[in-house]
């Protein structure tokens, strides 16, 4: 019996070495620890557009034609209003309208940046809405609680059902003689 177990352990160690080399191979794309510009917290790039000379239109709340055609080709919603994001010269925020009753109409969706003859379009992560508008929409200061019980309340219902089912299945397995 000992020989079969030893052969199986050697196969396991070879499998672990193969998986480790695969993990080391993809280590370039992983964001650094504590990066404030990583995709989960801020934004991710969706497309870039070649620019002629029409970036002044963005300051006057109008959208260039190339950007509009590119967005509709790929199926993204069209922004309704564009305004400056901060005191830097070449950064704008784009807003779209979402149809949800009892919430605010406009939502911050796009981040547009001009960078040496390219116009890059980013899309904000939806955690930005949790952080900025959470206290106004629900009167609760704790971000994790209103994320768990209000915006994601349906998942928590399934969660409670999971632990209830675990308790029931332990009862069914272990009470055989008379107490069931």
């Amino acid at each position: 019996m000992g020989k079969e177990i030893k052969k199986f352990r050697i196969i396991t160690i070879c499998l672990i070495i193969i998986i480790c080399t695969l993990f080391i191979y993809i280590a370039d794309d992983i964001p650094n620890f504590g990066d404030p510009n990583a995709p989960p917290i801020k934004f991710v790039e969706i497309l870039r557009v070649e620019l002629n000379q029409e970036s002044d239109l963005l300051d006057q709340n109008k959208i260039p034609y190339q950007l509009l055609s590119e967005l509709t080709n790929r199926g993204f919603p069209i922004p309704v209003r564009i305004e400056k994001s901060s005191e830097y010269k070449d950064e704008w925020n784009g807003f779209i309208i979402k149809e949800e009753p009892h919430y605010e109409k406009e939502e911050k969706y796009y981040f547009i940046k001009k960078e040496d003859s390219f116009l890059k379009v980013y899309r904000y992560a939806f955690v930005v809405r949790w952080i900025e508008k959470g206290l106004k929409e629900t009167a609760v200061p704790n971000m994790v609680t209103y994320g768990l019980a209000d915006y994601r309340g349906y998942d928590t219902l399934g969660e409670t059902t999971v632990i209830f089912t675990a308790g029931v299945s332990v009862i069914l397995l272990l009470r055989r003689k008379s107490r069931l």
Partner: protein
Amino acid sequence: MEWFLAKIFAKYNYWIFIILMMIGLYGILAKNNLIKKIIGLNIFQTAIFLYFISLGAVKGGTAPIVDEKIIEKGYTYANPLPHVLILTAIVVSVATTAVALSLIIRMYQEYGTIEESEIIKKSTEKEI
């Protein structure tokens, strides 16, 4: 020296995650006792939770509870989304461990041993 600092020290949560996960995977596959397999499963799940929560850390970030006095001092908030998803996953892991332990108790009452190789031998002999 540059690539050493950039690759290894900047992402040290990733390397800790790989080491813990491989320890757990070895425990599941290569050990003979059933209880040791369950412990390996728990180590595996703990490695995944640690990595997913460490993805939500922000430099200069504080706990995600809205407070106006902290914003004036210049802090930002950590990402609250991984915390929400991992709370659910921890409860699922507790439920899985409970059902697995009760299955081990039933197997001990039926076969009289917890070693996996002996259980396989006894079950094939019973069929014949």
